């Protein structure tokens, strides 16, 4: 499978598309009800990190609880 390999024309067109739909166009500056992609990723990453730390802590706590 070459699902991720693109020919030059496709790569150029993907670049042009990304540049436009990620960086250009109207945005809503108000983050309470609307979320914007750029901010999302950071939030999402933070969220993942938090989840994994909390998940790990839970496991530790559970493990501790069980061993008691």
């Amino acid at each position, binding site marked *: 499978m070459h699902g991720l390999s693109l020919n030059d024309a496709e790569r*150029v067109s993907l670049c042009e*598309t990304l540049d436009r*739909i990620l960086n*250009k166009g109207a*945005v809503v500056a108000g983050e309470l009800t609307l*979320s914007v992609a750029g901010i999302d990723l950071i939030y999402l990453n933070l969220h993942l990190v938090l989840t994994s730390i909390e998940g790990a802590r839970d496991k530790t706590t559970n493990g501790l609880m069980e061993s008691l």
Partner: protein
Amino acid sequence: MYNQTAQRSRKYLYAVVAGGLETSYDALGINDSPVYSIPDRRVSAVVSDVSYERIRPERRYLAVHQRVLRRLMEETTPLPMSFGMIADGSNEIRKILSLNQEGFYEQLRRVEGKQEMGLRVVWDVENIFEFFVNVHPELRAARDRLREGQRAPTQEDKIELGRLFERTLDADRETYARRVEEIFSRHCREIKRNKCRNEHEVMNLACLVGRESGPEFEAIVLEAAKLFDNDFSFDYNGPWAPHNFIDLNLKL
């Protein structure tokens, strides 16, 4: 707090279009949900229902966003939204439309009957630094001074040479962009210069042209390219929704 109803009614926002009619589009949105419009007076938001609160810019979602815009382009000139905007429900959408009615209307008028085309010009040479050294004697002289000097060039010497290269590159870009813009300005409503992505790029322009002027645009590109030799390569792309010609910070 977990709220089933609110989750179901979240709306992913693709674009704003002129006209106040409720419309169903024969296009599939994110996760194959139907695409439709929510109107408020003279403008409508084009949306589809999503369950998420946030969406990652994955290729499959970006492709859908682009596909919906392209579908809208078949019949109108939409104001494209940036990727990733999700509203909590149709009331939120109406609120955005209502608060920004004037701005939307003004921007829609600006792009009505038009589309965006992109033009990218690059130096089609193997080694851009070598090419510049060959074209610009003062750059060559500075390079040779460093090479043939009595002592090994310091970090500062190298930085200084790098700066000279940058300045020369930017000056050339400016000259060539003006030359090209002069030709295009006779045929385009508006031209916007975007930043170059690498040293090979000479210019990256977005042009607002009439919706029917695709073939004409190609002819202008050829006309402009004639003024340049084989060291330059001209590439155009489009049509696009007018991504580069929207100046809107929406109120909420």
